């Protein structure tokens, strides 16, 4: 066990999986010598060579499609798009091809493909480089969607994603790459679709994803001062979604706030709020509250961008409105 950044944890997961399975390879724009747009694939080109760490032309459709084709031809590709925003260019290859293959072919094929994409606001990259799009992918049967918050989760989930026989969309938050935490040196997996309780509490459940986990933990500390003990549940994957852990927590705390950076309207919180209302309404003492980004593109100017991303106060306020 040692202290590693989220970025290092991802890099280690890739390296270890490539070491233990020669069918695992990487493809994407500038993933080779350059080491990836944010540095996640650094050093892998030197270690594994250009046959296994492949720089592609700028052509997202072909990257996602080629990864899909290679996956159902027996390889385990890990494709990288520089920013999740570019998925628009290749969406057909993801949602009509990768996600549908197995079902359409009556279970004959598997598509063990992992698609890594950074998302999120915070670096002044403006509207076409800052979105959180997990709710798009949540609506596509056939995909799995991991969205890790900690370095520990990032490594274990990425290894699981690579070993999974389904296409896994792996969403990294670019503001998390520098966050560090304890990460085992050896290889390990985390079950895809298993939530983690990041903080125990009795008075309110805050379901938070990705970067919002840290915001929720900070909010929980603030709430503690007011005598409110918040439980912070990190689903770690939004598809499949660990409804069980969320329900258990709500049954204990009797109140729910969902926090994510994706736009609030029709965001992942809408699904979470809806199933809790369906399954556990009688346990709730108050309406479910959702915290998410406003319904507008991500602005460039720093004060606007900061205002756009939900903050600690937004979560504190949401909790206080029901507790």
């Amino acid at each position: 066990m040692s202290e590693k950044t989220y970025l290092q944890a991802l890099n280690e997961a890739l390296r270890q999986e490539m070491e233990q399975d020669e069918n695992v390879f990487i493809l994407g724009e500038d993933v080779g010598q350059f080491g990836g747009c944010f540095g996640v694939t650094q050093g892998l080109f030197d270690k594994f060579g250009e046959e296994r760490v492949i720089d592609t032309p700028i052509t997202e459709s072909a990257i996602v499609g080629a990864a899909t084709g290679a996956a159902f031809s027996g390889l385990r590709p890990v494709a990288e798009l520089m920013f999740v925003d570019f998925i628009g260019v290749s969406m057909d290859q993801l949602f009509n091809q990768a996600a549908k293959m197995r079902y359409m072919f009556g279970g004959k094929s598997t598509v063990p493909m992992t698609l890594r994409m950074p998302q999120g606001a915070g670096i002044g990259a403006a509207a076409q480089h800052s979105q959180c799009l997990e709710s798009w992918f949540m609506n596509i049967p056939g995909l799995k969607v991991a969205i890790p918050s900690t370095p520990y989760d990032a490594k274990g989930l990425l290894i699981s994603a690579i070993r999974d026989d389904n296409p896994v969309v792996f969403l990294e938050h670019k503001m998390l790459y520098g966050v560090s935490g304890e990460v085992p040196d050896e290889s390990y997996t985390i079950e895809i679709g298993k939530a983690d309780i990041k903080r125990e509490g009795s008075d309110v459940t805050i379901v938070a994803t990705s970067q919002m986990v840290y915001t929720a933990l900070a909010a929980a500390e603030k709430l503690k001062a007011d005598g409110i003990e918040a439980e912070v549940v990190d689903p770690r994957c939004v598809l499949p979604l660990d409804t069980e852990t969320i329900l258990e927590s709500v049954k204990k705390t009797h109140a729910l706030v969902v926090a994510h950076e994706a736009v609030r309207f029709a965001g992942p919180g809408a699904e979470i709020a809806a199933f809790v209302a369906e399954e556990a309404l009688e346990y709730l003492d108050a309406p479910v509250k959702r915290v998410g980004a406003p319904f507008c593109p991500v602005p460039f100017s720093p004060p606007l961008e900061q205002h756009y991303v939900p903050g600690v106060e937004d979560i504190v306020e949401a909790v206080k409105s029901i507790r």
Partner: protein
Amino acid sequence: MALSKKTLTQMYETMNRIRMFELKLQELFAAGEIPGFVHLYLGEEAVATGACSVLTDADMISSTHRGHGHLLAKGGDVKLMMAEIFGRQTGYCKGKGGSMHIADLNLGILGANGIVGGGGPLAVGAALASKYKHSDNVTLCFFGDGASNQGTTQESLNMASAWKLPLVFVNENNGYGISCPQCKSMAVVDIADRAAAYDMPGVVVDGNDVLAVQEAIAEAVKRARNGEGPSLVECKTYRWRGHFEGDACTYRCDQELKDWMEKDPIPRFEAKLLENKTLTEKEVEKIKARISEEIDDAVAFAKESPLPPVSALMDDVYA
């Protein structure tokens, strides 16, 4: 040289404006004064300048993530651009867009674009609108060598040719898409060769020779205005800086950069203008001093301008 003194002087000014604008940004970015990404156009000034020099205000351009040069060459306001890059309320996009998204529809600037290959289809649409309205406006689509590999670019070339649209595809081949050299991303050496697949003229020009660019684009624009359809003009050039400011740029060798810097398009053009007496040394000095002042004024304007109020966050999502 059949061009008038006025045109040549304007071209010289534009190249210097782009150069000084970018050098200033390089300095400001290093000083931590500019948020977000900045992709500089240093070294490529002759392409935008030569290409836009043949356009009217009513003609249009679609631009890229490396758009400052295109915008300035099309007449973009230095102050409004600078303020936008600083994220100020007074900027071209009220601080909402930043360097990668500046647009000025009154000048036919359809926008810089953060999506590589995003501009091609938009340019097709603009050219379609010109044809639809029977205007004789032409659209120029700027795109990189990297962008030429996007499906959107190929789809645009095809559609423009099938529909004989008044469109000129201006390929800025600076040899790299971020760290990826052209030879690793495509088998062809000349991107202009791809024009053949769409049955349109494909021309290669020295992209560091503003007059060569001007001439090739003028010919393509003439064709487009005459209803003869699109062309692809490939301008071979080089970007001096890394892909973005902050890029350590370890993927290419110093000698390559040195060789290209020796082909700096500005002194080359300047020498020609002095030699054939279009401009005197004195005039050159004056032009440079004036533009330098213009840029300084723009920086001052940007710095004095207010940041947008948070109340503006939800403005302009819908019309």
